[in-house]
């Protein structure tokens, strides 16, 4: 009759596969990271608590800097040209949302003029791009330190 052998449970964590996991995660981050180049104009966005996430595919950015210069798709444009540019984009994307990436210190008259041009082009869906309040506070704290 054979004697029953007692099995000893190992208490070690297998670390050999850690490198494989690290490589997999590395490949994921390398393939998904986009080093975004600065586009448009330099702006300090206003802060808002009620900012909602928008569908990226439908968004067209309008940049307005502190001096009131307007840029669409990396090109500085005059106010009167906006409706023409927007109309072309609207034909390709019917549900277009125009996102105002305007500097918080820019004069409201510029934003108002752009909105009038958007109405002419019948681009009625707009979004006032803003930084979430929490993120903006964190950035302010980091700058203070």
């Amino acid at each position, binding site marked *: 009759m054979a004697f029953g052998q007692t099995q000893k449970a190992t208490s070690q964590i297998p670390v050999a596969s850690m490198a494989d996991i690290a490589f997999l995660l590395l490949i994921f981050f390398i393939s998904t990271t986009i080093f975004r180049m600065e586009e448009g104009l330099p702006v300090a966005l206003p802060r808002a608590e009620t*900012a909602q996430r*928008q569908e990226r595919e439908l968004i067209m950015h309008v940049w307005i800097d502190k001096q009131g210069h307007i840029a669409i798709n990396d090109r500085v444009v005059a106010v009167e040209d906006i409706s023409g540019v927007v109309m072309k984009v609207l034909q390709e994307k019917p549900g277009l949302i125009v996102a105002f990436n305007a500097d918080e*210190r*820019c*004069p*409201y008259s510029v934003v*108002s003029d752009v909105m009038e041009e958007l*109405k002419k082009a019948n681009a*009625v*869906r707009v979004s006032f791009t803003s930084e979430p309040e929490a993120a903006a506070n964190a950035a302010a704290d980091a700058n203070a330190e």
Partner: protein
Amino acid sequence: MKKLSVRSRLSTQLSLPSTSDIAFLLLIFFLATTIFDLEQGIYMVLPGQQSQSVRVRRDNITIVKAYADGSITIDDKAIAVSQIRTIIQGRLARNDKTVVVIETHPDADYGLMVDILDELRLAEARTISLKTMLGNGVP
């Protein structure tokens, strides 16, 4: 007596154990630098060219004015940005048909208008109208 020279053999192997360390370092770099870009903003639908103007009873209108010097008034009473939410919530409780008009001076900061809009959204005002002030806005 002359020593015999010892020939050193060059190893052709890659040191594999250190590759995992490099992988971890790169992983930490990408984890720290990756920002998942989110598009956030206050969404609004503007009246289009075909939209017809709607008549609203004067009692249902609340006008929030933003001036070039940064001051704000509600129905010509000076207030601070932080007070907007409470005042509008009170008016909406009394009359749920309240239409809020943000009348902004052309020289006022755009950020001031967004601050007001944000407060109105927090007060759950559903009908908001944007207007540009004519003249200096003094009645």
